[in-house]
């Protein structure tokens, strides 16, 4: 579904990503982890063509992303930013419907079929009950889900989520990731999620890619990637890794040192 071949890019002469290559298959949920500034957001920006690669190729659904127009790309790939400022009080339904734009003609109004798709997206994200409310009156969790609903409205094959659980309490974090995982399975959707919480990443993702200084440090299943050696090398901190008693996925325990 998505393949990066030797991707190198950056801003204003500063290199951020260096020779990054990996493949992501349909229906996979991949977690992107790594310290701040390791290049995770830049990775998404390169895929969504906000940033132009210096070297390397990005293949999306088999085709070179350079050949894709902005519109065509939006029909295949949806992205959720870390934070989205919404300065005007659109209703949730109006907001979610904007996700249909890539599939409409430049000046075509959304039709009943589009409204149906939006309703389904809202139902899937449990935001149907607030459809008529202004989006800036929603709670943090509801707002995140509404933004996800908009992304789903694009009917993408690839979903990029940049810290989808930021600013959410643990209850909402788990709800959100449950939802995403379910959708990924149900719709055969390829999901790439930047997650700062290593435990959640290990819990939900099929594979993890750990970045260090713009390069891929390790790639593989959570068991393979989330080892105390990797974490010490990349995050420069001591940890102990055990198993989650319920899911048997790796769980990281921090080692505090304040004596």
């Amino acid at each position: 579904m998505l393949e990066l071949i030797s991707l190198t890019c950056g801003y204003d002469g500063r290199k951020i990503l260096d020779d990054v290559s990996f493949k992501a298959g349909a229906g996979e949920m991949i977690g992107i982890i790594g310290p701040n500034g390791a290049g995770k957001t830049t990775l998404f920006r390169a895929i969504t063509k906000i940033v132009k690669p210096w070297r390397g190729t990005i293949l999306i659904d088999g085709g070179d992303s350079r050949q894709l127009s902005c519109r065509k790309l939006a029909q295949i790939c949806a992205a959720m930013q870390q934070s989205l400022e919404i300065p005007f009080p659109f209703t949730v339904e109006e907001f979610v419907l904007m996700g249909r734009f890539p599939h409409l003609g430049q000046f075509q109004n959304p039709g009943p079929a589009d409204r149906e798709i939006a309703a389904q997206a809202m139902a899937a994200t449990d935001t149907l009950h607030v459809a008529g409310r202004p989006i800036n009156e929603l709670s943090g969790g509801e707002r995140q889900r509404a933004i996800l609903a908009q992304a789903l409205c694009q009917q993408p094959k690839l979903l990029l989520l940049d810290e989808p659980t930021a600013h959410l309490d643990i209850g909402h974090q788990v709800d959100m990731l449950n939802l995403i995982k379910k959708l990924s399975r149900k719709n055969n959707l390829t999901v790439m999620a930047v997650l700062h919480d290593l435990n959640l990443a290990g819990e939900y993702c099929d594979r993890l890619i750990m970045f260090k200084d713009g390069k891929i440090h390790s790639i593989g299943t959570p068991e393979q990637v989330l080892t105390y050696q990797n974490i010490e090398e990349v995050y420069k901190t001591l940890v102990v890794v055990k198993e989650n008693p319920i899911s048997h996925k790796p769980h990281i325990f921090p080692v505090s040192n304040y004596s």
Partner: protein
Amino acid sequence: MNNKIVILFCALAALLCVSFAISLSSGSSSMTPGRLIAALSNPSGTGTDSVIIWRVRFPRVALAMLTGMGLAVCGAVFQGLLRNPLADPYTLGISGGAALGAAIAIVSGANSAGALTLPLAAFGGSIFSVALIYFISSRHNFSTHTLVLAGVIVGFICSSLVLFIFAVTDASKLQAAIVWLMGDLSTASSRLIVTAGAAISAGTALLWMFRQQLNILTLGDEKAAHLGINTALVKKIIFLAASLITGATVSAAGVIGFVGLILPHAVRRLAGPDHRVLIPASALAGAIFLPLCDTAARTLFAPAELPVGVITGFIGGIFFLLLLLRKP
């Protein structure tokens, strides 16, 4: 379309008729209802009453309606484009360029050359500032940040040039320039109205075509790109269309403030931020509001005429004061 919106548009249409009727019937000459109706039904008459209604008041009201429409629509569009509910048509310094063009025309005496000299000079000035802003912003992919910065800078440069011209000019010419700067709907000639009206209407139609893109652009450049919009291109088109309208209004009627700021604000509260409704509703609101302000300006202290900018400024100030006092 839901019921609330239908009701809103019916109300606006009704208010438009009322505003038109009031503006046409008001002035420093009072007429009995009988004479008024006789004059209203005789557009080509040569009697004093008909001349006053149709050749003195009507062009002025028509210009006020077109200008009000243009300013309100541009205000709504700039607020969306710049993602800021406090933006207005003059945020990007277009009025500064127009003022510069007008000041040069008035002070050099070129103004006496012909009826369209001053508006054309003002329009030329606005094109100058728009071109400058366009050029600067293009080099930064037309990002909102650059657009605002470029607009403010160009506005300041033009304003200081205008002040410079004022400082070295004869007092009498200065006064004429100041009158223009405060908003002047009295020079309404049919050629001016048709030209300005064409520009304003064409610009508004084009902007309405881009209503969906405008909605999405309020979410930011990155999100808009994620949703398949070629942000640089679309923003350029929208910017040029809105600037054309603003340039046309300032050239025809001087700098009239607050209309482009308060009306879209108020309409958005009533009708929501969807540009599909916001643009036409703002257009109607502008066409209702400005003629009424102008009517007040020319009747409150008759026979003296206040600049219409004084009335809109006063109302604008009160509006915002009330707004501030309401929300905690």
